[in-house]
C-alpha cells in the first residue's frame, strides 16, 4: 500500500505544476520533470528538484515578463512572491522538524595530489549523518565522501567500500592512490572519511593536535618524568575542549561508524557492496557484516584488529619480533651479518637502560636543542613501530646493531620519520576506542611495559562510558577473506586465524610470509600494495567470491634483502 504523500511532496508537486504553467513552451519537458518527482525517494531532494524547475521556468520567462502588460506582470510577480514565501517557510520547517534523509551532495573535488588522468573519475561530496541515530534533534555531522568511478565503464555492479584504520586515519585525501589499485578492477570504489577523521566533521580537539605530539615527544625527551601524567593532562584538556564545543562523546564508536556507512550506502543508492577493511577498518567491516549481511556481497579483512579480549600490545610486539629474529637466523645473509640478533636486541635494551643515547633529530620534530634521549623504552617503541612495515625489514638488523654499538648515525632521521608517521586523528582514536574496548578500563600494573603504557589502559573511565561492542560476524553467509602478515605486531597470525575460524566456513584465511600490518592495501607514498600477491588475491576474491582461490603466490613473495652491516 502506498503511503500518503508528505506535505513536502505535495508542495513539490505544486511547484512543478506552477513551473509548467509559467513555462508553457516547455511542453513535455515540464511534464517530464513532474513525472521524475515520483522517482525521487527523498522528500528534500524532491523539493530541491521542484524548486530548480520553478526557477528555470521564471528565468526562461524573464524576457516575456518585461514585455507583458502591467496587470499580467503583477500577477506573475504576485504568485511568484507567494511561492517564494511558501518555499522559504517550508525549508525552515524542514530544517527544524523534518527528519534527515541520506543524500549525497556532490561538490567540487578539492583533493591534494590528484593527477589529471584520475581527476575525471572522482566524484566528491558530502553526506550529512545524524550525530545520534536515536535522537535526531542532536544535530548532524557532515562526512566527506569520494566515489572513485571505475576506469572500466560500464562499471560492474556492487562497488567496493574501502574502510580505513586508526581509528582516526584519513582516507579521501588518498583518492588518487586508491583509484590506481587493482583490488576493485572494474568496480567503483567508495571512500569515506569516518566521523571525526580526515575532512569529515567533527574536529574534536582542533587546538590540541600539537599537544598530542608534544606529549609523545615529552616521553622521548624526558625519560625521568611521568609520561602517563603528561598524557592524562592532554587527554583531559581534549575532552574538555570537545565538550565545550557541544560534542557528546557517546556519539562515537564502531557501532555509530557502522550506522554511518549504512547511511552512506543508502545515500549513494547502492543495494549491495563489497567491504574492504584494513586494520581497525576490519573491526568496522566485521560489525557491518554482522549487522547488515544482506547489503554485503563479500568482505576482505586485511590485518585484522579483533575485538576484546586480546593480548597486551607488548606481548604481540614481542611475539612478532621473535618471529622476525627466527627468520633472520634462518636467512643466510642475515645470520652471517647479524648472528643471534635476538640476543643483540636484548643487550641493546639493557645497554640503553643503563645509559641512554643522545640522538640529534631534524628540526621538524620540534624538540629543545634538536636532541632526543634514546632510552630503552623509546627504542622498544621505535622497533615496535618498524615491525609494522616490510619496507623497514631490510635495515632493521643493522639499526639494532648500530644502536647496540652506540653508533647514532642516521638514527635521527629514523626517529623523526616514526614521530611524523602518526597522522591518525588522536582524539578520534580515543573517542572510538574508549567506547569500544572494555579492557582500556583496566588499570595497568606498575611495572607494565611502556608499549602498554602508551596505549589507553586506565584512561577510558575518565573519557566516556563504554558503548555497544563491535561484533564478529559468526557463521555469516557473506564470503570473507582474511589476510594476515607473518610479522604483524597488532594481531599475530594465530589470532587472526582464530577469528577467521570463529567467523565460520565462509571465511578464508591466508598468511603472507615476511609481511607486516598491511598486506594488500595501497601505500600512501605510491599507491602500490605492500604485497602485490595480496592485492591480486583480494582482487580475485572480489571478482568471484565463490571461486577457489589460488594463494600460492603468498609463499613465493620476495625474500628480505637485508642490508649489510
Amino acid at each position: 500500500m502506498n503511503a500518503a504523500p508528505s506535505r513536502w511532496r505535495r508542495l513539490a508537486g505544486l511547484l512543478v505544476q506552477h513551473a509548467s504553467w509559467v513555462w508553457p513552451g516547455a511542453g513535455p519537458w515540464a511534464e517530464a520533470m513532474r513525472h521524475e518527482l515520483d522517482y525521487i525517494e527523498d522528500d528534500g531532494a524532491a523539493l530541491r528538484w521542484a524548486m530548480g524547475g520553478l526557477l528555470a521556468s521564471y528565468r526562461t520567462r524573464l524576457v516575456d515578463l518585461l514585455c507583458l502588460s502591467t496587470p499580467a506582470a503583477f500577477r506573475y510577480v504576485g504568485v511568484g512572491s507567494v511561492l517564494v514565501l511558501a518555499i522559504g517557510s517550508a525549508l525552515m520547517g524542514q530544517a527544524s522538524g523534518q527528519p534527515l534523509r541520506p543524500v549525497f551532495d556532490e561538490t567540487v573535488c578539492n583533493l591534494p595530489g590528484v593527477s589529471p588522468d584520475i581527476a575525471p573519475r572522482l566524484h566528491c561530496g558530502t553526506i550529512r549523518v545524524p550525530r545520534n541515530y536515536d535522537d535526531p534533534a542532536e544535530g548532524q555531522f557532515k562526512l566527506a565522501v569520494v566515489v572513485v568511478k571505475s576506469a572500466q565503464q560500464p562499471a560492474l555492479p556492487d562497488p567496493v567500500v574501502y574502510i580505513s584504520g586508526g581509528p582516526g586515519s584519513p582516507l579521501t585525501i588518498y583518492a588518487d592512490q586508491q583509484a590506481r589499485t587493482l583490488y576493485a578492477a572494474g568496480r567503483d570504489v567508495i571512500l569515506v572519511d569516518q566521523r571525526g577523521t580526515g575532512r569529515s566533521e567533527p574536529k574534536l580537539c582542533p587546538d590540541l593536535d600539537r599537544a598530542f605530539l608534544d606529549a609523545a615527544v615529552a616521553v622521548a625527551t624526558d625519560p625521568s618524568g611521568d609520561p602517563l601524567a603528561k598524557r592524562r593532562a592532554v587527554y583531559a584538556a581534549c575532552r574538555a575542549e570537545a565538550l565545550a564545543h557541544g560534542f557528546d562523546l557517546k556519539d562515537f564508536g564502531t557501532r555509530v561508524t557502522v550506522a554511518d556507512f549504512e547511511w552512506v550506502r543508502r545515500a549513494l543508492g547502492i543495494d549491495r557492496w563489497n567491504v574492504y577493511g584494513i586494520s581497525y577498518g576490519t573491526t568496522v567491516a566485521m560489525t557491518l557484516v554482522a549487522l547488515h549481511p544482506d547489503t554485503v556481497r563479500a568482505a576482505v579483512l586485511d590485518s585484522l584488529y579483533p575485538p576484546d579480549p586480546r593480548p597486551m600490545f607488548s606481548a604481540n610486539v614481542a611475539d612478532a619480533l621473535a618471529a622476525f629474529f627466527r627468520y633472520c637466523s634462518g636467512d643466510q645473509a642475515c645470520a652471517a651479518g647479524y648472528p643471534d640478533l635476538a640476543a643483540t636486541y636484548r643487550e641493546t635494551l639493557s645497554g640503553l637502560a643503563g645509559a641512554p643515547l643522545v640522538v640529534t633529530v631534524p628540526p621538524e620534530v620540534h624538540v629543545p636543542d634538536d636532541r632526543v634521549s634514546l632510552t630503552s623504552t623509546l627504542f622498544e617503541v621505535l622497533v615496535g613501530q618498524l615491525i609494522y612495515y616490510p619496507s623497514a625489514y631490510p635495515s632493521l638488523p643493522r639499526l639494532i646493531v648500530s644502536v647496540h654499538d652506540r653508533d647514532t648515525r642516521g638514527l635521527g632521521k629514523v626517529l623523526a620519520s616514526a614521530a611524523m608517521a602518526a597522522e591518525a586523528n588522536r582524539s578520534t582514536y580515543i573517542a572510538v576506542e574508549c567506547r569500544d574496548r572494555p579492557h582500556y578500563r583496566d588499570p595497568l600494573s606498575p611495572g607494565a611495559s611502556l608499549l602498554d603504557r602508551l596505549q589507553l589502559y586506565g584512561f577510558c573511565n575518565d573519557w566516556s562510558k563504554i558503548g555497544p561492542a563491535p561484533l564478529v560476524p559468526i557463521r555469516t553467509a557473506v564470503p570473507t577473506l582474511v589476510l594476515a602478515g607473518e610479522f604483524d605486531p597488532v594481531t599475530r597470525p594465530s589470532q587472526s586465524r582464530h577469528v577467521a575460524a570463529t567467523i565460520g566456513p565462509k571465511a578464508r584465511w591466508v598468511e603472507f610470509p615476511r609481511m607486516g600490518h598491511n598486506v594488500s592495501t595501497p601505500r600512501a607514498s605510491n599507491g602500490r600494495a605492500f604485497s602485490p600477491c595480496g592485492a591480486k588475491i583480494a582482487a580475485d576474491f572480489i571478482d568471484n567470491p565463490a571461486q577457489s582461490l589460488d594463494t600460492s603466490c603468498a609463499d613465493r613473495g620476495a625474500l628480505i634483502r637485508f642490508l649489510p652491516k
Partner: protein
Amino acid sequence: MPRKPNISRQTRALLATFLDRSQIWRHGYDLSKETGLRSGTLYPLLMRLSEQGLLEARWEEAARPGLPPRHVYRLTARGLALAHEQEREAVLGDRAGAIA
C-alpha cells in the same frame, strides 16, 4: 540549420555523462545526480541539445504499476560525435597542462 551549441562547463559535463554509457537511455533525475546539475540547469540544457538534434527523447513505460511514465534521453549520432570531440579536446588540454 541549428546553431552550434554553447559548450559550457555544464554542457561538457552532461555530454561526458552520456558518453559514459552511450547506448543506454537515461532518466533526468539520474543525470542530475551524476552530473551534479540541478533540474533548473539540466532541463534547459536537455531542451537545447534536443532542439539542435544532438539528443533524442522518448517516453518509457513505468517499471512498476502506479508510477507515471518517464522521459528518457540519449545522444544521437551527431550528439555522440560532439561528445567524443569534447572528450578528445579535454584530453589534449590535460596533456598541455602536464607539459606546462
